[in-house]
């Protein structure tokens, strides 16, 4: 899908990807700016995603790593405009460059509130956050240009429709190919993702397949419309280690052959180290650190990233050693700490600073950002205190 012009010019954008597959090297495929998603519950407001900004460049694997409640899955659902009430995207921009488009410098989607017509046309940049979630443009993008590989393959497939019918449906909806041709294309894609005897498998139901095959069927459905961005939300948590290795290898191959960018979400640091070109570390809805995979794993700067990397047992570590731990546990989402969300567990927390102010991301080396007061120059004015959560509407 993506062409492959020479990628040479240094990126004008602060974030330089370490490796990219193709496309216009300087223009991100997706730019998320200050995205906020909140859930308005009777007990209070949960700020699930709290000021998220990142870029995804064509052909790269962008890894998002974080623990329970860090907002990684909610953020991805927000990209596809799949956040259901009581959740809502309250602010921020999700700039998506449609096929043949240019850099996301203009947001022509502001006036699209009511209608379904695509304001930016097929080759512009659209702000997905401003589009109606059920509108024509969003439906044309969702599944076709941006596809999701959800976490739970059993829940993602309908149990009363065969795998083949579901994959064919996606092809018919988005690619205008019908009947036997769509069926044959579905079989070809299933073969591409490594399903043995795909013609027979297409007649099976999801519950008849093994975990590994079900995951492959899901990947087949996601890539069936040749998306330019694939969002893989913990695609290997439900499968065994040897199957996991197969799935990761498959995703790497699909990236290479199809040139699609992948946003890879996981809590497994091993998987992220194996897959990603660039990594974003999230905690309680905020970005703690972001940078090339090499820097995140070999020169982590944020105390949370450092602690996370130290606390995991490794195949190469000394057995029975006491593992360094992160004290405490992840706070309840309704009970988020003030200031830096990590400060109650942080060994470097500075009273009077970290517990009252939210650190802004600061670029420490090209493309490597950390949001931590340790890296603020001494004497620098503190950012304005965080605003009170907006009233429930």
């Amino acid at each position, binding site marked *: 899908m993506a062409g492959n012009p020479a990628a040479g010019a240094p990126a004008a954008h602060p974030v330089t990807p370490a490796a990219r597959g193709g496309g216009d090297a300087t223009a991100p495929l997706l730019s998320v700016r200050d995205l906020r998603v909140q859930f308005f519950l009777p007990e209070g407001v949960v700020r699930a995603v709290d000021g998220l900004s990142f870029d995804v460049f064509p052909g790269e694997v962008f890894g998002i790593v974080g623990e329970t409640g860090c907002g990684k899955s909610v953020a991805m659902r927000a990209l596809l405009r799949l956040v259901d009430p009581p959740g809502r995207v309250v602010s921020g921009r999700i700039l998506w460059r449609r096929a043949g488009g240019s850099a996301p410098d203009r947001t022509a989607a502001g006036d699209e509130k009511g209608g379904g017509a695509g304001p930016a046309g097929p080759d512009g940049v659209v702000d997905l956050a401003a589009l109606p979630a059920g509108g024509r443009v969003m439906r044309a993008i969702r599944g076709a240009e941006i596809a999701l590989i959800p976490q739970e393959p059993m829940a993602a497939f309908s149990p009363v429709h065969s795998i083949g019918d579901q994959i064919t449906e996606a092809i018919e909806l988005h690619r205008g190919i019908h009947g036997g041709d769509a069926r044959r294309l579905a079989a070809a894609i299933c073969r591409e993702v490594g399903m043995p005897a795909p013609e027979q498998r297409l007649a099976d139901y999801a519950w008849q397949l093994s*975990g590994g095959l079900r995951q492959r069927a899901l990947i087949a459905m996601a890539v069936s419309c040749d998306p330019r961005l694939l969002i893989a939300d913990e695609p290997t948590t439900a499968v*065994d280690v*040897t199957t*996991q290795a197969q799935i990761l290898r498959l995703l790497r191959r699909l990236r290479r052959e199809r040139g699609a960018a992948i946003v890879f979400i996981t*809590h497994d640091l*091993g998987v992220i*180290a194996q897959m990603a070109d660039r990594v974003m570390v999230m905690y309680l809805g905020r970005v703690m650190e972001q940078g090339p995979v090499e820097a995140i794993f070999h020169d982590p700067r944020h105390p949370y990233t450092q602690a996370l990397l130290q606390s995991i047992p*490794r195949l190469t570590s000394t*057995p029975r050693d006491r593992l360094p731990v992160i004290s405490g546990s992840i706070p309840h989402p309704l009970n988020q700490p003030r200031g830096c969300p990590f400060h109650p567990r942080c060994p470097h927390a500075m009273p009077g600073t970290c517990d009252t102010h939210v650190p802004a991301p600061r670029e420490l080396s090209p493309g490597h950002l950390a949001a931590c007061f340790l890296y603020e120059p001494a004497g620098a004015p503190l950012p304005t205190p965080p605003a009170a959560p907006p009233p429930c509407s």
Partner: protein
Amino acid sequence: MQLTPSGARSPRPAPGPGSAGASPLLEVAHLRKYFPIHRGFSRRVTGWVRAVDDVSFTIAEGETLGLVGESGCGKTTVARCILRAHVPTGGEVFFRARDGATVDLARLPRRALRPLRREIQMIFQDPYASLNPRMSVADIVGEPLLAAGGVRDRRVRFERVADLLRLVGLRPEFMPRFPHAFSGGQRQRIGIARALALHPRLVVADEPVSALDVSVQAQTLNLMMELQQTLGLTYLFIGHNLSVVKHVCDRVAVMYVGKIVETAATADLYRTPRHPYTAALLAAVPMPDPRRRSDDGELRGEVPSPANPPSGCYFHPRCPFAVERCRVEAPGLRTIGPGHRVSCHRAEELSLPGVS
């Protein structure tokens, strides 16, 4: 569930082991557990799922044995047979009780089993499913004391519960609270406190950290290792995360489709695996280091069903080293080095990569 084929238990009058100097706390010998497959309206038995098929291992007192394998390999069924949640189809489970007598848990009548239940306890995988949401922490941790410990006095019981909570690093003030008020890591501590309430000697931990967040896994593993030191516990640690298993276990047994394929001291097994499946499992672990990316050593295919295993060596359809003999003849577990046992025809000639 209790449809065990009669006569399947091999008659073995007295426990053979136990005569040696350091007799094991637990010896599992030729353990088998088959589940029937029913078909049709008459629920006729048409086949058997050989969930556990001739599994043997020992655990010395104070030791941690890791049982690893992929889903469906039978590791949890082994644990359930030891706890007698399942009645084994065959084989023996010898346990050296506190009074020194060695008993076969596989064949003990339920009544005789009761006093032994205090000595073997379990830590469960999912701390969200294993605690009753309608019971307070005091009742959850105190229940074994009431049910099997005979501590009828509420005040005495709650004092014991407070001690147990302190032992696992929770505040006794948490006693009146209910599980929903706790995070995953704290819930797992409650589960550990409950398991320790009756001073067990053997603790079966079935994937105790798999459901926990990365940042709290380390706390839980540290706690389990500390408790082992202070209380002299013996662990059977079931897991699929090979990095975690390496960290806490003295010895490791690798299971594949109901059978143990390799067992050795931890360092030995990870440095020089002798079974191709062990080597493949190690190669499949994603290393948390972008400088050590690997795209090779991938295992073909998937784990076969224990209801319909392949001929010969169960691993041969996926094994990159399989020869004709592997297709027809099932290898037995044999000793290949000090404390190192493997079931592979070609173990001697293969040189498999491990991790160092």
